[in-house]
């Protein structure tokens, strides 16, 4: 990877990092487990590597933004996540911030 390519990759990851949290919170208004969440995000154009998504779910839960429970589905135990009340509040704030940034960038371009 040449320098501009690797620099682009670093900047791209930096740009995506915050957006991923917002995307995950947006999709977890409805209860999902890790793999179906990943598929739902990918279907809407937000591909996330499993090694990023699954630890991210754990972190968001530790921060109190998600709740989870183990439940059997299709004869397999799965951990289902959904937004907590704090998560819903945080999602509203982040969404407002995202919209403001989006408007600002659009105005700048």
């Amino acid at each position, binding site marked *: 990877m040449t320098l501009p390519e690797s620099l682009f990759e670093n900047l791209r990851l930096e740009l995506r990092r915050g957006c991923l949290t917002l995307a995950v919170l947006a999709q977890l208004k409805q209860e999902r*487990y890790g793999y179906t969440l990943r598929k739902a995000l990918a279907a809407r154009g937000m591909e996330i590597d499993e090694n990023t998504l699954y630890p991210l779910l754990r972190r968001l839960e530790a921060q109190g933004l998600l709740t989870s429970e183990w439940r059997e589905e299709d004869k397999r135990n799965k951990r289902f996540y959904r937004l907590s009340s704090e998560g819903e509040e945080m999602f509203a704030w982040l969404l407002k911030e995202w919209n403001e940034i989006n408007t600002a960038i659009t105005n700048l371009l």
Partner: protein
Amino acid sequence: MELLDRYLQAVKKHLPWERQDDIVAELKANLEAQLEDKEAELGRPLTKEEMEAWIQQLGSPLLVAARYGPQRHLIGPALFPIYWYLLRLVIGWTTLIYLIAKTVEIGAKGLSGHAVLDAALRLPGIWLINAAVVTLIFAVVEAAGARFPGRYIPFAPMSPVWLPAALPPLAKSAGERPRSFAKALAEVIFGWLLLAWLLLVPRHPYLLLGPGAWVLASLPYKLAPVWWPYYWMLVAIQVFELAWSSWELARGTWQRPRRVRPLITHTMGLASLAILLSAPDHALFLLKNPAADAAAHGAALASLNKGLTGALALAAAIVALQLVWSVGKMGAETYRKRRAAQ
């Protein structure tokens, strides 16, 4: 499936022990569902090679497990600026206090190359201990902050307190306000007068000491011969300063900022102090009549010489520090200008 289980076992080994089973169970459920989807798409089970390729693409067990780690830095970005500021402050003050303490100690015990070398060699160890203590404290604060986010560690109040009104006035750079012609001329005129005064002092000591010259003459002490080379070094410094100022005036370059000249003057000043410190047995004053006065005034003279040597060693250390600071500042300025020009 056996390969997936082996993979998960390898991941588990590197996970935080208290959450190993929970994480692996979740990962297993997700990966098995993903595998089922793949096989449903193909309409057959994956071959051994396809399975290996898929597992390979999931990433190395060590790196996958690392993503579940609680914290991957010793001091995080929120705390780092305060840490870095305090670290520099602690190292700077420690160095200054150490140098002053060592100078006084060496001055009191007598100057020797071994003592200076020993003091210099101990300094990196002192830096290391201080840096380790500061780093350890901040690492503990960071770890506590990560464990109890926003609850017990008040990060915001830890930022250095500052008030806009207390900010220092704008610094004037050397080139911002050039010296006026009148100031440059006054420097040359007073420089000549100072040189004349300096040259007259040995024959007319009252020009330096006033009435104290007659008091000194009545004392049983006299200056040691080492004061002569020191005196001529002072004259050399004054001649150098005068020649430089006169040359600037003659060439019309007195407005240019002076960068090298203070370094030369500092170096010569340090050399002059070194001359005094190299006096045999640190005897800066001697008895006029050693045979007659040794018993009565010998002890007082030894005490005087010791005290004076200590004070000179301290002065030499301060001048040396100023010199190092000036050279460092000049080097940093040159580097910054070069970087800016790139």
